């Protein structure tokens, strides 16, 4: 089988398989025929030998009464005139057939190729003997009723074999010329059979990389139909991914236009401020803020695009959400302090989840950043991490203005920004949060906080092996 797999083309493989099978069947048939023929032939020729011997014995017994004198001469039939009416007429097979007739142990009649000594030691029945010249003979011995006539009839075994060979050749020879013919016909048949496969591969190779419309094939054989269906399903999925990608790129480019327009406008205001130093300074400050915002937007876009690129195959290990939340709270605390906001963290115990450390950090950071950003100066933002009933729960509450239900439902739409906010968000934070949560099977819920503002809850399943991270 290894040999077949070495053949690269399906067509060559099928053809080779076909030809080998035909040869095997044919040769087996020939072998069977050979065995069968040999047995039949042996039976037939042995019967002939026995018959000939019986005939000779019968002749001798009749001849005894007619011509006694000839017995003692030990004549050889073919070297004298055929004056002996009892001697059989021998044809071209004479050298292959031999006989001896003994009268009371005296050789009275024999064929020219027969030796003087009895051909077989067996007086009655069949024996296979080897003559002095090395030839193998099949000999049948028979005796007259009185026991004084002993007849041996022999036949060269080689002649039987040559008959067998002739039969075998008759069976095998057609294979020699049939095989090439079968090869050609088989090649054509296989080629015809594989035609749908070839047209499929042609249709695929003709495709432009952007072409994602489904393959349409007429008379698709049932063997190939699943392949075509799978391919079409794949094209559809890829189309969806590409569409999303295209839409995202377009949205992203549009979203970048606004901060750039702002930067440009502010820079131009600064240039046109003339001797109004206050206005120039203000415009320059705003220019810088615009740059920061564009940077923030780009960073968020990159995070999101990396998430999309990773698909569902983001790396996961066991991480401690408590530690991550503490780290992010520490990072963002200066922002809160700058706006006299109170930031509280309630995370009394380690909370292990299966996720990626960096991405979980991004999620926590985005939620906390949103809470701080969209809450007024002096607001309260509280974070809590708890473990209960096989779930790890992160809750972010703020005392900000909160969001009406309709707007909460729209959180996570790319570039959706809540109304009336003077804060410059990218509109991507929630998309990122939702995407990361999706990757790690976490659920995100929003509601009204006890503090008066927005409450966000993220629920992960607890990591299956709690001990793993503690080692």
């Amino acid at each position: 089988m290894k040999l077949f797999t070495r053949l690269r083309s399906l067509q060559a493989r099928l053809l080779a398989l076909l030809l080998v099978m035909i040869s095997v069947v044919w040769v087996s048939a020939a072998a069977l025929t050979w065995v069968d023929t040999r047995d039949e032939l042996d039976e037939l020729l042995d019967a002939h030998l026995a018959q000939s011997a019986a005939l000779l014995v019968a002749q001798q017994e009749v001849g005894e009464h007619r011509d006694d004198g000839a017995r003692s001469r030990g004549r050889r039939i073919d070297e004298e005139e055929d004056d002996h009416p009892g001697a059989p007429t021998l044809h071209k097979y004479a050298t292959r057939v031999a006989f001896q007739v003994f009268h009371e142990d005296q050789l009275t009649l024999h064929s020219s190729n027969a030796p003087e000594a009895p051909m077989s030691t067996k007086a009655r029945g069949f024996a296979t003997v080897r003559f002095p010249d090395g030839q193998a003979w099949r000999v049948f011995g028979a005796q007259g009723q009185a026991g004084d006539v002993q007849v041996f009839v022999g036949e060269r075994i080689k002649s039987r074999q040559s008959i067998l060979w002739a039969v075998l050749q008759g069976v095998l020879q057609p294979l020699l010329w049939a095989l090439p013919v079968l090869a050609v016909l088989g090649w054509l048949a296989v080629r015809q059979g594989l035609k749908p496969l070839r047209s499929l591969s042609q249709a695929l190779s003709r495709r432009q990389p952007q072409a994602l419309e489904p393959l349409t094939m007429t008379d698709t054989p049932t063997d190939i139909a699943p392949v075509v269906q799978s391919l079409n399903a794949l094209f559809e999925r890829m189309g969806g991914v590409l569409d999303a990608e295209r839409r995202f790129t377009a949205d992203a480019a549009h979203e970048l236009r606004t901060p750039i327009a702002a930067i440009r406008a502010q820079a131009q205001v600064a240039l046109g401020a003339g001797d109004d130093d206050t206005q120039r300074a203000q415009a320059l400050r705003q220019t810088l803020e615009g740059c920061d915002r564009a940077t923030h937007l780009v960073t968020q876009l990159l995070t999101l695009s990396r998430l999309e690129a990773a698909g569902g195959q983001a790396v996961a290990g066991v991480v401690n959400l408590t530690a991550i939340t503490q780290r992010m709270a520490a990072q963002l605390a200066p922002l809160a302090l700058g706006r006299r906001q109170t930031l509280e963290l309630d995370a009394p115990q380690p909370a292990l989840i299966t996720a990626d450390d960096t991405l979980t950090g991004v999620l926590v950071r985005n939620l906390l950043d949103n809470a701080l950003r969209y809450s007024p100066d002096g607001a309260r933002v509280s974070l809590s991490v708890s473990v209960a009933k096989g779930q790890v729960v992160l809750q972010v509450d703020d005392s900000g203005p909160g969001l009406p239900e309709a707007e909460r439902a729209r959180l996570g739409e790319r570039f959706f920004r809540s109304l009336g906010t003077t804060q410059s968000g990218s509109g991507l934070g929630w998309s990122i949060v939702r995407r990361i949560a999706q990757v790690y099977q976490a659920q995100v819920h929003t509601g009204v906080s006890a503090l008066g503002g927005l409450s966000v809850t993220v629920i992960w399943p607890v990591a299956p092996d709690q001990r793993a991270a503690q080692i």
Partner: protein
Amino acid sequence: MRILLAEDDPLLGDGLRAGLRQQGFLVDWVRDGQAAEREIACGNHQAAVLDLGLPLKDGLDVLQSLRRQKINLPVLVLTARDAVPDRIKGLDLGADDYVVKPVDLFELGARLRSLVRRAHGHTQDLLTCGALQINLAARSVTLSGQAVTLSMREFDLLHVLMLNAQRVMSREQLEQQLYSWGYEVESNAVEVHIHHLRKKLQADLIQTVRGVGYTLVAAKDPLCGPVA
């Protein structure tokens, strides 16, 4: 020239307002679609700059509902949506101009002036009335070829009167055109500016119609209007 700016982005709105003010525009800034529609319907502005991605009501919806109410205020759409179908849609829904962000502030100013000019049936940035000529782009005034220096408010007042030549403008109408939000308007501000204009130009150029308002002397001079 008092215009309405509808833009939800704080940074861009601030920059546009400051930049247009530098060019002598009076700018009122609203941050959502409903406010934009309300303010435009009030008719205090000579043109509007409308962002499309506005909260509460999309810019295109605002535009559509304004046009349905037969409000013909020149509207310049300023947006990030740059695809040709978007532009076509915007213009077909009644936008007078369609500008893609980012935009040069001077270009924006020039486009706004052009919109206002065309809305009044003029073709040039030059308005003339007898010996009086004002250049809107340069914000300069000449009387019989002699340059006259006017304050910003005086120029705006003269501009409004010239645009509305042959019509009597009430004191309230003039006030609406002269002051954007956040300015304390003295009750006699318009009278004071008219007084200054009469002193700097010809005394009989601006006439008072008692109990109604003011008008530029159009009847005496049929040539009053834009330069042909």
